[in-house]
């Protein structure tokens, strides 16, 4: 692979040793000469190793991204979600339509986000939702039996990661998708739902109609609660501490 003369292993080591032996013989006890010997011999040794080292490093350089990609090819998602529990539980079957749907996450979400519950007819039944610690809940008064779907999209207040998951559960019974206000109201709801899913504006509608979380959402619109004073004090303290620590020590 390499045309470098030191790649000829036997010759390299042979040269190295003989150099070393010659210098050693002539060195007597002079530390200066001793240093020269050391330097010369190690120099040859390093040159020898570097040829092999390059290929080892190259192999390692290939191995690392491959290994990471193999793992990444699994189910690791950078924007992760952690559904801790829910009521009704995912993939469960309820005997009647729930009046309230709750979802508990393993990290507290920031209050603003999206929480959409669809009933067996695919209609959005979560007109508002509240966030209490790590639990999101939404009243669902008019849901129809069938396969319900819950979709949430939040940012963790703890580690900044985005939760974005969907789960479903079933409700026993015969669904009646011809609701009273039918076509207009349902169409509106569909529009809202579609809008929410495509990140267009229904989430805003949902926020406006939100009970407990509406305040947080509105507060957020007006200006989030940034602890400006503590952050400024902490920053000033850090810089001040550094300047104090950096002061020149008294000269001796």
């Amino acid at each position, binding site marked *: 692979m390499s045309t470098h003369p030191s790649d000829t292993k036997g010759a390299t080591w042979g040269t190295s040793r003989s150099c070393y032996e010659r210098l050693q013989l002539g060195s007597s006890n002079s530390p200066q000469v001793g240093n020269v010997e050391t330097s010369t011999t190690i120099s040859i040794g390093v040159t020898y190793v570097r040829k092999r080292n390059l290929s080892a490093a190259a192999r*390692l350089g290939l191995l690392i991204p491959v*290994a990471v990609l*193999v793992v990444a090819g699994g*189910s690791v998602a950078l924007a992760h979600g952690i559904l801790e529990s829910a009521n009704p539980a995912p993939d469960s079957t309820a005997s009647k339509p729930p009046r309230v749907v709750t979802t508990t996450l393993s990290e507290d979400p*920031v209050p603003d986000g999206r929480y959409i519950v669809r009933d067996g007819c695919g209609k959005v039944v979560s007109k508002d939702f509240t966030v209490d610690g790590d639990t999101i809940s939404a009243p669902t008064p008019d849901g129809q039996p069938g396969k319900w779907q819950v979709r949430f999209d939040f940012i963790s207040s703890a580690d900044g990661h985005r939760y974005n998951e969907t789960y479903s559960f079933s409700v026993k019974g015969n669904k009646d998708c011809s609701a009273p206000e039918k076509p207009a109201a349902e169409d509106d709801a569909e529009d809202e739902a579609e809008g929410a899913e495509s990140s*267009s504006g229904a989430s805003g509608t949902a926020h406006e109609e939100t009970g407990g979380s509406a305040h947080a959402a509105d507060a957020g619109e007006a200006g989030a609660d940034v*602890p400006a004073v503590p952050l400024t004090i902490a920053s000033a303290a850090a810089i001040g501490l550094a300047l104090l*620590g950096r002061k020149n020590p008294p000269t001796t």
Partner: protein
Amino acid sequence: MGQEVPALVLWSARLLIFLSHALLFGLVPVTLLVLRPAFASANLATEDQGISLLRRTKIVVLVSLLAGVAGTLLTFLNNALEDASLRDVGLGFGSIERVLSNSFGQWQAIRFPLIAAIGILLLGRTGRWLLAGAGTSETPAPKRWWAAWSILSAALLLTIPFSGHAGAHDLRATAVTNDFSHLGFAATWITGIVALSYLLPGGWGRSSRDVPISLLAPAVDRFSRVAFWSISAVVVTGSINTILHVGAFSPLFNTGYGRALLLKVGFVCVILAFGAMNHFLLRARLNESLRTEQPSHHAAILRRNVRTELLLGIAVMATTSWLVGSAPPA
């Protein structure tokens, strides 16, 4: 489709944060407490070696500071973009304000003044004090400097567990304390590896002629002991982290987080093998070589091992960056 920082960029940003914070935390104890005494017998003030050491220390400090700022900026920007995307608005002051209103954003934000403060403390000082007693008229770092460094570097490192999974754990105090210890010991170890492979005269990028065994052997001897205890502590605290964040055996194999963790453990095992070779075999050979004033090819083997360990250490950090972005099973 929301606007986001691409996943690979975000992953790189996390890697930059890990590496920079590790170096900013580990550089001072490794250079001033481990390496400096090893230089005591050498006269580095007038040597090319001393100049090289100072220049390289400065480069490591500068690169770490810039990488820390860049990584933090990118993660902060990502959060602001995600907030904007979630609210269907463009990126603006409102999104930044909203990121700053949650604990994650606050821990990110506090990194900037901390990094600036550490920069003020380190630039122009670490190098001078590194050579104190090695043929220069410099006096060792005063206690006040050490006190300021201890507080600032610990605070900087603490921003990682507080803005990560440890900060969101049910056993928050335990998880944060353990993660902080894990990062601190890992930072000490990897900075030592950087010091041996790059900072020392004759390090990466220099002519191999400059490898001085009179510096290498005592430095390796001193660092080897530190590395032994550091890596042991990393293994112990890492195991506790696994219990806290994985909680059971099966998720190690059937979740993405678990598989990434196994990959990380695999890298650490290879590092342990190299470390054991350095600690138990090469260190003694180098000391013997120094004592008898006879040159040894073991120096070259050690340097090769250390460079491989450095690459593996970066691989461990890259895997950790991935873990930070994925969901822990427990």
